[in-house]
């Protein structure tokens, strides 16, 4: 049976944990607003870039089109770009990405493909290093966080592009958490190479564009840009999703700590009462004996 002093200490320790989780929740909520704004204001560029590339791609010559768009005709080696967080304490955020990656690797290997991994974010690469460490081509840290720089996305896209040009892989897919709203994140798989570009809507397709320089040349210069843009918006989405996940997780933790404090306080009061009753019984029976 825990003594009163022990119980008091337990309660105090849970109380300080609750203070920490409540503070983390508020920090995440404040940062989330900024990250969400960044993700939203990044959308126009990504949308326009996509529609321009789509209209260009629909007119490109299939035979002479760049390999980044149509693929190199093989699909033996897959590169997975896995975007997770650098920090933990954000609920199932990193865990679900890790799980998805693991099942994706298993699926591809089951099909007889070779898998390579490019890890963005410390948590997921730590979790998978023992299992798939030999498949890592690189693992990056410090890319996300409160402010995502476009130049970071460009760097990653250059790594991917060089790898593709050297024939290190044939197909490239990105796995990341998409920010849906403050309580939901959605794991999304996007194929980067060959570029998966949704077809243009009909109103656009009718316009006869002039191109300067030629279509193929323009497309060649656009594809690296669209790759960077896709990576950049994924990084933005992932950062916002991470903060949202942390906010929810810390909110739950704060509430759980509150419940625990209530329960412990009840136990504490009961033991105190029992001790008082015991003392009274001793006094009364002592008085009766005299």
């Amino acid at each position: 049976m825990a003594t009163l002093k022990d119980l008091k200490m337990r309660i105090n320790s849970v109380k300080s944990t609750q203070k920490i989780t409540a503070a983390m929740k508020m920090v995440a909520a404040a940062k989330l607003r900024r990250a969400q704004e960044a993700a939203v204001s990044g959308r126009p560029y990504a949308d326009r870039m996509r529609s321009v590339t789509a209209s260009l791609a629909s007119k490109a010559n299939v035979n002479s089109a760049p390999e980044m768009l149509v693929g190199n005709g093989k699909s033996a080696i897959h590169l997975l770009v896995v975007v997770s967080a650098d920090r933990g304490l954000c609920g199932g955020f990193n865990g679900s990405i890790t799980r998805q990656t693991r099942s994706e690797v298993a699926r591809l290997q089951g099909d007889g493909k070779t898998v390579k991994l490019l890890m963005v974010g410390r948590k997921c690469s730590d979790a998978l290093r023992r299992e798939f460490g030999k498949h890592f081509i690189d693992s990056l840290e410090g890319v996300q966080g409160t402010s995502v720089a476009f130049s970071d996305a460009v760097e990653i896209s250059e790594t991917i592009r060089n790898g593709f040009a050297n024939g290190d892989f044939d197909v490239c897919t990105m796995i990341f958490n998409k920010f849906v709203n403050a309580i939901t994140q959605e794991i999304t798989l996007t194929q980067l190479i060959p570029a998966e570009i949704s077809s243009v809507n009909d109103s656009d397709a009718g316009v006869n564009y002039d191109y300067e320089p030629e279509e193929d040349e323009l497309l060649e210069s656009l594809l690296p840009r669209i790759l960077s843009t896709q990576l950049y918006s994924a990084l933005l989405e992932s950062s916002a999703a991470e903060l949202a996940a942390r906010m929810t997780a810390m909110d739950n933790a704060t509430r759980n700590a509150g419940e625990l404090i209530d329960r412990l306080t009840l136990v504490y009061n009961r033991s105190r009462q029992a001790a008082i009753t015991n003392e009274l019984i001793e006094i009364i029976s002592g008085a009766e004996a005299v």
Partner: protein
Amino acid sequence: MVETTQLELVTPARIMTQKLVQMVVVPGVEGLFGVLPRHAPLLAGLERGVVEVHEDGKVTDRIMIDGGVADVSEKSVTIMAERAIDLATADLAVLKERAATAGEAEANFLNAVISTL
């Protein structure tokens, strides 16, 4: 009423400019070109250079971009640039500071901006 065309300049981070203009001059890879309302649809690659907005024969805005793409239609001009700086509000000291700490590509662009100021 003077005819206008909708100019939009977007960067990955935000929409820089969004307004109706009479003419805009854009640095294409095959040379500078001006865009007036009812321009033929054009998709052009852009070089590093200055986008100039003209109103009543005068230049009202100058924005330096680091290459990109312009999507011109009859009613609009959309310029997508990875980096863009408005020369009217740019501050030399701030730019120099940023150029010193930025990465190679960014610093390169910032130095070009500084030299045009």
